[in-house]
């Protein structure tokens, strides 16, 4: 309950700051925020182009929401186990890339999900292993792996897998893509995120896993007090390795639902911003899997809706990142303020 009010506080303060900035720029904050809701398919726009309406907007919002849920779950699980997995972006990229490659041989949606899960898990396991074998700080390894993976993959795409027109990687074939793009139904053109139900189910299962299983108990004990966990007879190293492996696997699911779902291709030379926003989302959600779903919803409303808002209000799209950054700052502050006692 305390966490919930902290999060609410962070959101309100951040939106107020955002409004202040909009106002200083000479814009009307209320109509700008309403445009954000319109852009996410939560309010009716003034007019729509052909085969589009509020529902199609909402469906593409869900499409953008799906990888965010997975990514924030990855952060939340790692934090429960005492790890700060800041390298979600790199793990996503690696998983997305592996799935692209696999889809060339096995064009199946199931294969994409499985490959993404495994690829992410491998990177997570590597970070966990480096931590317990050599005691290398996971923040350092995960952020360094981000760069290593990004440049390796960029090199490969630019050399072997480039689409010369779009300057992106080739697109994944539609049979393996996790989003049904341009699906025609009732005269509408919809983007259907097939991984969305998986994301929701994953959040529910993860919550149950953390709260109701002995593994979850071990992860929490290890995260909060490794010495006490060791005294309890918990295999601390194995638990740490398992936590990071699972966190990486969730990041991998985020990767495939992003690069093989929401997008169909990989932009070389970049890591996905979602990987970093996920940290804010997880903090905002109180590192609780179900909290993450709601926080993902909110942050995605802002990031997705701002595209429409920026074109309507003639404001740079970076305002979305700015508000998200505010939320991150305040969420972090309030969670620290909350534990200041004693």
């Amino acid at each position, binding site marked *: 309950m305390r966490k919930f009010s902290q999060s609410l506080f962070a959101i309100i303060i951040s939106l107020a700051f955002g409004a202040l900035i909009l106002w200083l720029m000479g814009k009307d904050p209320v109509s700008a925020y309403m445009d954000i809701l319109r852009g996410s398919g939560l309010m009716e726009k003034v007019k729509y182009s052909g085969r589009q309406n509020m529902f199609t907007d909402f469906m593409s919002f869900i499409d953008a929401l799906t990888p965010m849920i997975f990514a924030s779950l990855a952060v939340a699980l790692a934090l429960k186990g005492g790890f700060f997995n800041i390298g979600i972006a790199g793990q996503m990229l690696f998983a997305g890339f592996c799935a692209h490659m696999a889809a060339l041989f096995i064009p199946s949606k199931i294969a994409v999900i499985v490959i993404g899960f495994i690829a992410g898990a491998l990177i997570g396991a590597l970070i966990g292993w480096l931590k317990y074998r050599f005691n290398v700080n996971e923040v350092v390894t995960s952020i360094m792996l981000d760069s290593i993976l990004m440049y390796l993959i960029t090199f490969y795409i630019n050399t072997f897998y480039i689409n010369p027109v779009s300057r992106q990687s080739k697109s994944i074939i539609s049979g393996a893509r996790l989003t049904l793009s341009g699906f025609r139904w009732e005269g509408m053109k919809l983007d259907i995120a097939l991984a969305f139900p998986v994301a929701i189910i994953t959040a529910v299962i993860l919550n149950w896993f953390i709260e*109701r*299983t*002995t*593994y979850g*108990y071990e992860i929490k004990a290890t995260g909060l007090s490794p*010495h*006490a966990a*060791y005294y*309890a*007879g918990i295999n601390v190293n194995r638990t740490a390795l398992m936590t990071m492996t699972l966190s990486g696997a969730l990041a991998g699911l985020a990767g495939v639902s992003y690069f093989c779902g929401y997008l169909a291709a990989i932009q070389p030379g970049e890591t996905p911003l979602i990987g970093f926003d996920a940290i804010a989302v997880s903090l905002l959600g109180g590192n609780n899997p179900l909290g993450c779903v709601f926080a993902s919803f909110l942050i995605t409303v802002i990031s997705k809706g701002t595209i429409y808002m920026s074109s309507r209000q003639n404001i740079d799209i970076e305002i979305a990142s700015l508000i998200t950054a505010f939320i991150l700052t305040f969420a972090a502050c309030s969670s620290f303020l909350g534990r200041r006692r004693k």
Partner: protein
Amino acid sequence: MAENIVEFRHITKRFPGIVANDDVSLSVKEGEIFAVLGENGAGKSTLVSMLFGMYEPDEGEIYVRGRLEHINSPRYAGSIGIGMVHQHFRLVSNYTVAENIVLGLEPVSKIFGIFPYVNIKKANHDIAELSERYGLKVNPTDVIENLNVATQQRVEILKMLYREAEILIFDEPTAVLTPQEIESFLKIVKGLRDGGKTIILITHKLREIKAVADRCAIMNRGKLIDVLDVETSSTDDMARMMVGRDVSFKTERKPAKFGDVILDVENLTVRNRAGFEAVKSVSFQIHAGEVFAVAGVSGNGQNELADSIAGLVMPSGGTVKLNGHDITRSSVREHLTAGVAYIPEDRHNVGLVLDFTLRDNFPLRQYYTGKFSSNGIISKSEFESYGEKLAEAYDIRSGQGGSTITREMSGGNQQKAIIARELDMKTPLIIFMQPTRGLDAGAVMNIHRHITAERDRGAAVLLISLDLDEIMDCADTIAVIYNGSISKISPASEISTDEIGLYMMGVKTA
């Protein structure tokens, strides 16, 4: 009569679920040693913390030298001449003594009259002088981490004196000291008083109060019971007021009935983290129904001995047998299933997951067993009912019952929780490591009673303590550890405190 230097008027302070101080009014006179006595959770630390600006009272006022003060930070408290030595020292461990003392108030000189730098020579000189003046022996250039606890405490005291504090607060100052160190600490305190300082001493050790204090406030459950002149009051009276009932100081014990050998330790050698042999070829046996107590000065291998028998540290040589089974190289969990309960010294970092709820801490050592989970799925209802059962059986008090975050509980109740958890496993061997450190008389009694009860149940008890009184009260057999070796093992009835002391200091060896 000297005048009042500190006055608390109608102080009330509440924490969630607890009234820590309930309308407390008392005054401290200039130049006296004023003791505040009470059980853990009686509110004595809270009261004094408000004087040092760590909390602010919800109601009531604090007057210092007749002036109403709103002390909202330790910094402000310092500026009006109030200093405090906390139970856990606040020193930078890789700085020298002098650097620690001047930290924040460094003597500054300027190169070429422009560039400021810390004049450490002057600091060293000042500290040496200060240490001389108050008879507090320290070497200004020693690094803190190389010093023993008693010396670190002297550094803390000098830190206050350097800041020209007139009112010196000590929070449980003797909890970590050996008997000899306590003696010298009490002398220091008297010396400070004779030098004109006002001393406020938070403690629950009656003997120390009797030895040094002029007056003594007694608190119980947040309320001030009385303020007594120490000279004219007996320790029995003080104890009764503190606990709110009669306390007998000696635990009633039936004579021990030894059974079979439960624990058989042979030539046990344990290296510490630095690779140094902390326990050297130690051998002893503990029988069913025996309390085997290990006395010794802090840092003579007690931690390593306890940790290795409990399975937390792998011995480098020798064997440990429990009921004839070799458990020398078993894991922590194998030790548990074999039947070794362990109450560790560090209850905050090892004994408990402080940020867990009380209810989640109870099954810490058994959560994986069929009692609390099946096929890896935890039984919430079992967690809940078990928590209620233990809290009830061991009288563990907490603000919000089983959902209380353990960190927010008092030290005594935290320790009770650990003891409840370990004893409830009904194991053949129980290791108590410093079980009553920092606890009040009531809690100590309670724990000693548990130790005796476990013995009478037929368990083998290994009690490791720095507190000689505790060892004399509880032990059937006494061993003394010095420099990693056991220098003496004797039936408790055949050895005197003085003799143990000589073995502890290494004056006598076997």
